[in-house]
């Protein structure tokens, strides 16, 4: 699975592009579902917001054929920040901005995990929030916490990650919202899935699908230095 650096970089850029496009497609095709969730406990725009943002991401990727993963991620972050139009824009945007900024430091699975954790921390500090408040963080944090275990094996158990995301999104249903519009509903926010948790889960699912496919067909590289567990 080792490869020369230039090849790795190129493969990586292409893979990252595929990942982002898969996430974009999944979010866009799920817009109505996300909006429906936000109608129940928010202002009903999460699907529209995410669709606007990821359509812009798609357009930006199409017009900029960069292979530089850091630049690509920064571009995704900036586009989401500028185009989403709701709180989720700067939140997801901060994830991608932080990851893009740190990308060059990733040299193995351990640094990959550390950078992803830092990116999730960036979301939390943007939102002045923490897990347990019925937000996207209730998916993102458990996911990052699970990464060391999942990435222990040479072939990561992506199905476990995907299931964990779905399960954590489900677990927001009985929670009481303490951030965002849903918090206005107090007790009445209980019994509904958080829209941001749902979109996070969708995005994780898309990522797992693409990565699983990539592993099966070509032994994709997760990190610039090759794919060292």
């Amino acid at each position, binding site marked *: 699975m080792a490869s020369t650096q230039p090849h790795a970089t190129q493969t990586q850029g292409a893979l990252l592009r595929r990942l982002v496009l898969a996430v974009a497609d999944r979010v866009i095709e799920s817009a109505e579902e996300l909006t429906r969730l936000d109608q129940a406990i928010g202002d009903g725009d999460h699907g529209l917001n995410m669709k606007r943002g990821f359509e812009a991401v798609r357009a930006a990727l199409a017009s900029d054929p960069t292979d530089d993963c850091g630049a690509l991620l920064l571009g995704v972050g900036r586009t989401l920040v500028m185009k989403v139009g709701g709180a989720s*824009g*700067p939140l997801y945007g901060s994830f991608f901005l932080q990851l893009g900024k740190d990308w060059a430091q990733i040299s193995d699975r351990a640094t990959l995990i550390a950078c992803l954790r830092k990116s999730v921390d960036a979301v939390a500090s943007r939102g002045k929030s923490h897990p347990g408040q019925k937000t996207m963080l209730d998916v993102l944090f458990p996911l990052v916490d699970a990464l060391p275990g999942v990435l222990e094996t040479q072939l990561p158990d992506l199905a476990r990650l995907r299931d964990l995301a779905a399960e954590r999104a489900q677990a927001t249903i009985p929670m009481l919202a303490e951030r965002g519009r849903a918090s206005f509903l107090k007790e009445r926010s209980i019994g509904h899935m958080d829209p941001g948790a749902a979109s996070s889960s969708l995005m994780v699912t898309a990522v797992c699908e693409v990565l699983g496919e990539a592993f099966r067909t070509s032994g994709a590289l997760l990190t610039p230095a090759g794919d060292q567990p």
Partner: protein
Amino acid sequence: MSNVGIVIVSHSPDVARGAADMVRQMVGAAVPLAYTGGNPDGGLGTSVEGILEAIDTAWSEAGVAILVDMGGAETNSEMAIEMLPPERRSRVVICSAPVVEGAVMAATEAWGGSDLDTVRRTAEELGGASK
């Protein structure tokens, strides 16, 4: 030194415009003022680009006080501030104050030549109870 500038950020373009009208009625052109509302498509929401433009329009050497309505408006405004050039970043504050009432109070304070901190404090003194 010039007066502190005021930026109004609402999810609703109408609220933003109307609040700006109310500010203008109180302070005329003596206070740099800009407003923005609506997501990048014009629907209810806020736009970081719109906020950055508004900060630029209302820019004052004395700084800029931003009034926001709720959640996303605040998060997007915080994001916009971080995207400013470093020399401007420290001279922009978001007031924890009601968007309409706070804008009028902040602008009235700015009109008197008060500094950014005083302008912010005046807007923030507005509890729900003061009308």
